[in-house]
């Protein structure tokens, strides 16, 4: 073969390579994830990655519109009795499960019962539920022991929420996540396969019964434009970015802040901010150690820290973070400035005086952090330095995430630990509100305010009580918020219908390429 022929053959082979890559990808959205979710069972698993995939398959009775207000999804409407204790929910008719079976009140009843008993967030509502009954095939009644304001928000939050499964699948199931063969929901996409380390694939559900109305957040019309959604674990961020640039992936999540400006300028790539910010939390131990019940010492630690340098180092571009002390972001209905004057003082000298007054004698304070999340570790390094400058003897203990989870359940193993929290549409869902969450904040003041907060449905009253709770958090310091972080994803500019930001998790109904 002479040189010219060789060049010709090589060029032809290259074109064939390129063409074949494109041909296999037709109608499939390829989403590069950071890893694999622990399970897709939405009732018991609270991983955001699990919800990113699973909310295309599973639906609840309610969902959130673009203003984060709960609106019906599988429900068609509801009534609440005058005493606020009886909720009657009408169900949409003609909704089919992926196995072809029609959804009725029996399925909703079985799903709510399993979620109430074993669901990650179910006990928040069901500890106050007297009974749940079906009235015919398309209506259920929930009787509460006392009025419970956040019921609809809890029903609408699908992450660890009441996803509706067929009764035949969910009856008798306990805390253990259901197996992939039981991933049967009502969503626009249905489960196809989960190949370990390769992908999770959902395919279009042709008998999907979409809710009516204009698309609005997660509410309104849902159209499955793709033949399949393929979620591919790509743990290396360089590979995720290169994959989108090369056209091998259409969408990639969790891109670090230091690449933001470069990617934002790239015309072939769209950067998509996650609308609901995540926020770091440093929990303090209320059960054991020097911080137990010593609120003055906790306030001293809080005063020593200036949150801004840590956000600059750990996150990067200012567009991606806010030094915001409110537990819910500015612009959100739950935003409040109660207590936030104590959010980021960075007063080392003042903290030293406060610590001495609180009886601190330089004993080691065990601070656990994981390297699995770089922003946890980077932030903890900055805080440790600031705390040392204020005279605190910080024993920084670095673990992998699995070890940290095990250790934080043992009160004698730690004094502070770092974690982060996803955006939630109702403060009742923030982990510090859960008395059993490691940290175990359960003071009488909290209990009294929490009871008032859940007992009313009046939005203005609930907001006022939440402000009091946030002020109490800054006073008793069960946890320290580290600031809002707007993570971002990237997508091929060929994708249509994505919008500039996600509501909470990315969704791919009404999206095409």
């Amino acid at each position, binding site marked *: 073969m002479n040189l010219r022929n060789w060049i010709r053959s090589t060029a032809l082979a*290259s074109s064939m*390579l*390129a063409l*074949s*890559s494109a041909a*296999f990808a037709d109608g499939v959205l390829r989403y*590069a994830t950071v*890893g*694999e979710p*622990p*399970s897709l069972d939405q009732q*018991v*698993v*609270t*991983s955001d990655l699990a919800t990113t995939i699973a909310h295309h398959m599973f639906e609840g009775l309610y969902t959130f519109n673009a203003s984060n207000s709960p609106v019906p999804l599988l429900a068609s409407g509801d009534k609440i009795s005058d005493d606020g204790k009886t909720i009657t929910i009408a169900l949409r008719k003609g909704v089919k499960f992926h196995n072809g079976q029609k959804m009725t009140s029996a399925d909703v009843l079985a799903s709510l019962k399993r979620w109430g008993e*074993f669901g*990650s*967030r179910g006990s928040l509502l069901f500890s106050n539920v007297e009974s749940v009954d079906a009235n015919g095939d398309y209506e259920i009644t929930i009787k509460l022991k006392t009025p419970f304001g956040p019921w609809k928000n809890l029903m609408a939050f699908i992450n*660890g929420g009441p996803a509706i499964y067929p009764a035949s699948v969910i009856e008798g199931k*306990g*805390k*253990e*996540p259901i*197996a*992939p063969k039981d991933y049967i929901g009502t969503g626009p996409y249905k489960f196809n396969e*989960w*190949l*370990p*380390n*390769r992908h999770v694939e959902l395919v279009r559900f042709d008998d999907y019964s979409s809710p009516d109305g204009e698309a609005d957040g997660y509410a309104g019309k849902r159209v499955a434009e793709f033949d399949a959604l393929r979620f*591919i*674990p*790509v*743990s*290396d961020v*360089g*590979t995720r970015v*290169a*994959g989108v*640039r*090369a*056209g*091998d992936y259409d969408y990639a999540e969790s891109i670090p802040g230091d690449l933001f400006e470069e990617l934002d300028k790239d015309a072939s790539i769209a950067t998509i901010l996650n609308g609901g910010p995540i926020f770091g939390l440093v929990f303090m131990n209320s059960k054991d150690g020097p911080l137990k019940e010593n609120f003055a010492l906790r306030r001293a630690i809080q005063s020593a820290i200036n949150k801004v340098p840590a956000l600059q180092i750990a996150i990067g571009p200012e567009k991606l973070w806010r030094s915001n002390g409110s537990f819910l972001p500015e612009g959100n209905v739950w935003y409040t400035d109660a207590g936030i004057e104590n959010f980021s003082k960075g007063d080392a000298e003042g903290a030293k005086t406060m610590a001495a007054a609180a009886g601190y004698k330089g004993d080691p304070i065990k601070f656990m952090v994981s390297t*699995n999340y770089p922003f946890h570790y980077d932030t903890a390094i900055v805080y440790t330095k600031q705390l040392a400058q204020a005279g605190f003897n910080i024993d920084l203990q670095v*673990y*992998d*995430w*699995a*070890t940290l*989870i*095990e*250790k934080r*359940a043992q009160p004698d193993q730690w004094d502070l630990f770092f*974690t982060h929290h996803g955006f939630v549409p109702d403060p009742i869902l923030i*982990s510090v509100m*859960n008395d*059993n*969450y490691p940290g175990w904040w359960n003071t009488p003041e909290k209990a009294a305010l929490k009871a008032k907060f859940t007992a009313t449905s009046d939005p203005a009253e609930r907001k006022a009580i939440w402000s009091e709770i946030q002020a109490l958090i800054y006073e008793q310091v069960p946890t320290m918020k580290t600031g809002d972080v707007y993570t971002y994803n990237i997508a091929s500019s060929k994708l249509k219908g994505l919008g500039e930001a996600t509501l909470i998790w990315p969704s791919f109904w009404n999206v095409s390429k």
Partner: protein
Amino acid sequence: MLAYTFKRLLALIPTLLAASVLIFLFVHLIPGDPAAILLGDTATPEEIAELTHAMGLDRSLITQYFLWLGNVLQGDFGTSIFFRIPVLSVIADGAETSILLASMTMIWIMLIGIPIGILAATRHGSWVDQIASGGAMLFASIPTFWLGLYLILIFAVGLGWFPSSGFPSISDEGGLWNIRYLLLPSLTLAAPNAALIIRLVRASMLDVQREDHVRTARAKGLHPTKVAIRHVFRNAMISVAAAFGFTFAALISEAVVTETVFSLPGIGRLVVQSILRRDYPVIQGVILVIVCLYMIINLLVDLTYARLDPRVSLK
């Protein structure tokens, strides 16, 4: 040879039993709880304990070990806590990628390493040798993650000739054509390994070249190429054969960096991910399979020695 092979295979049994105890202990002594990882950040200690009990992980280590061993002896490696499918099926899926990747890499290593090694040895001290040895040092020093990312940038992002990452099974759509996904990763893995083989072939051949039988062959007037291949290279291959065997095993079990950069669903990445999520049955299963692999390769290397060098007797 058959009797020897049978005896060596029998000797694997006590070694594997000892390995199984060590693997089981190490895996279960790592702090961390699969139930806590499965249930996520909001799970309470009671919920975690309940799931731990449901999965049988609250039984004594001895009970768990013998249950596991009993099942393994019947060919049942258990079910992945994470994926809810049999461990053997998870391993088989990873093994397909790893075996294909290791095989392609070995082809590159042989195609690049052996001819250049021979050339460097036969032209010892010349500019050819200098370039071959210098190049080998350079490629042996390049970190695989760096080389991998640059190959992606040039050949996937820049030229668009190859996919940047991933590997669909050859039983999926695309069939054997999916092998193209492994081209860049295999080149990445081959670079440092071929460099080592170049140096090994060169050094072994230089040693053999100084021996009497080579001098005799030359004195008899044999063609230099014939001397290099038939008399020098064949004898030099004895040490190279061992290196090939263990390189192949290492490529299957230790290619985790390349598998991560190219997002390949191979065995190395499977082990690391399984450790991070404390998927005990998968970790135990994969490590046991890797131990078996090393033992079998060790046996094959010994058998190859005897084939290459009649002085080696199999007793």
